[in-house]
């Protein structure tokens, strides 16, 4: 039997919610372990003080990408059954730009705001409140925004198709770019006071 297990009726919808809970616990655990529940640490990314966000995000992306690649190659995973988020060019680029401004302003993203809250950070609660408000606003304005939201649909489009490269070459390219990014990140961080720790101090203040 090949993965994904759920798609083969291996277990039902009720059990899938328990899987969701377990996956979430592990997700939240590693986010907190990496310091991703700390807004000061996340925001320092954008001032080149602490590039942990970049390192954690791209290490995770590369790990999962290589995992999918090798499990597929070994015949253990049926990749056509994985849900690949489809592409809408303009709304996703624009949405990313808006999201980035909100990220550096709020200091947390949706998932990390949960970890911030559950580790006692009250600013996490404010980010979550703002996010619910933003989603409400977007939903209420949806009749007006629907045109933009649904603009430039191209369906499921992947990087190998865009770059006209074989899947294997794209995986290699993304891995190589991530590693080059990590080397650069280590260099940029050097001599900037070190990464933001979990303590209540405010390192790298002033300058």
């Amino acid at each position, binding site marked *: 039997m090949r993965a994904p297990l759920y798609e083969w009726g291996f277990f039902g919808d009720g059990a899938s*919610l328990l899987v*969701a*809970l377990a*996956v*979430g*616990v592990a*997700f*939240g655990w*590693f*986010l907190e*372990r990496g*310091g991703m529940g700390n807004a000061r640490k996340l925001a320092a990314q*954008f*001032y080149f003080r602490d590039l942990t966000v970049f390192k954690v995000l*791209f290490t*995770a992306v590369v*790990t*999962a*990408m290589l995992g*999918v690649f090798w499990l597929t190659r070994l015949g253990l995973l049926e990749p056509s059954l994985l*849900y*690949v*988020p489809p592409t809408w060019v303009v*709304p*996703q680029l624009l949405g*990313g730009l*808006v*999201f*980035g*401004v*909100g990220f*550096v*302003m*709020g*200091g*947390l*993203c*949706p*998932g990390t705001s*949960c*970890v911030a809250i*559950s580790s006692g950070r*009250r*600013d996490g609660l*404010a980010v979550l*409140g*703002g996010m619910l*408000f933003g*989603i*409400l606003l*977007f*939903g*209420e304005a949806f009749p007006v925004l629907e045109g*933009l939201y649904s603009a430039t649909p191209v369906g499921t*489009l992947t990087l190998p198709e*865009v770059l006209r490269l074989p899947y294997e070459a794209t995986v290699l390219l993304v891995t190589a770019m991530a590693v080059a990014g990590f080397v650069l990140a280590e260099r940029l961080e050097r001599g900037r006071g070190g*990464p933001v*720790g979990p*303590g209540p101090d405010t*390192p790298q203040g002033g300058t």
Partner: protein
Amino acid sequence: MTGAAAYRTVAPSLTRAGSPAEAGTDARRRAAALDGEAPAAYLNPYVAGVGLGLVLLAAFVVMGRGLGASGAFTSMVAAGVEAVAPEHARANGMFGHYLAAGPLWTDWLAWEILGVAAGGLLSALLAGRFRSAVERGPRVTDRARLLYAFGGGAVMGVGAKLARGCTSGQALTGGALLSAGSWLFIAGAFAAGYAAAPLFRRQWL
């Protein structure tokens, strides 16, 4: 702030994680943290990244889908709007779509995000990092920071809806599956974050 220097010395550094000598130090730090002395250092970012990547891979293997966060919050907002104005909510193109998927308690992402909060709590407690605080730079008040946080959250909520996902659903999940739209989202978010950073420098540094 006399504690600042002491905390800086326990700040995590790249080279530390994993070596046997350091394991002892970590245990001591953890014990100290439980005594309320100092929180344990964060995990090496690459190790945390591999851990997150394996969690994402497990979600692919078991469920055929990845992680998410903003989707769970949209389901919650949709359920809230439905509770207040049922007909209005169901007639709305976005809320109606989420409501048609079924009640909130059957939403996969809602359970997942509940787990995220629980996992974060567990990890923070065990590391002595649970602390009631407002994370901010030294030049702003808590009140100002909370206003920025709310505003940033609202902007992010709009961006995540427009992009059909956030750092979890687009950057992590779509990124690992090499979705072109997800990589556009990543590029846009990082570019705008760096471009807007000078506007919010006072809040952080």
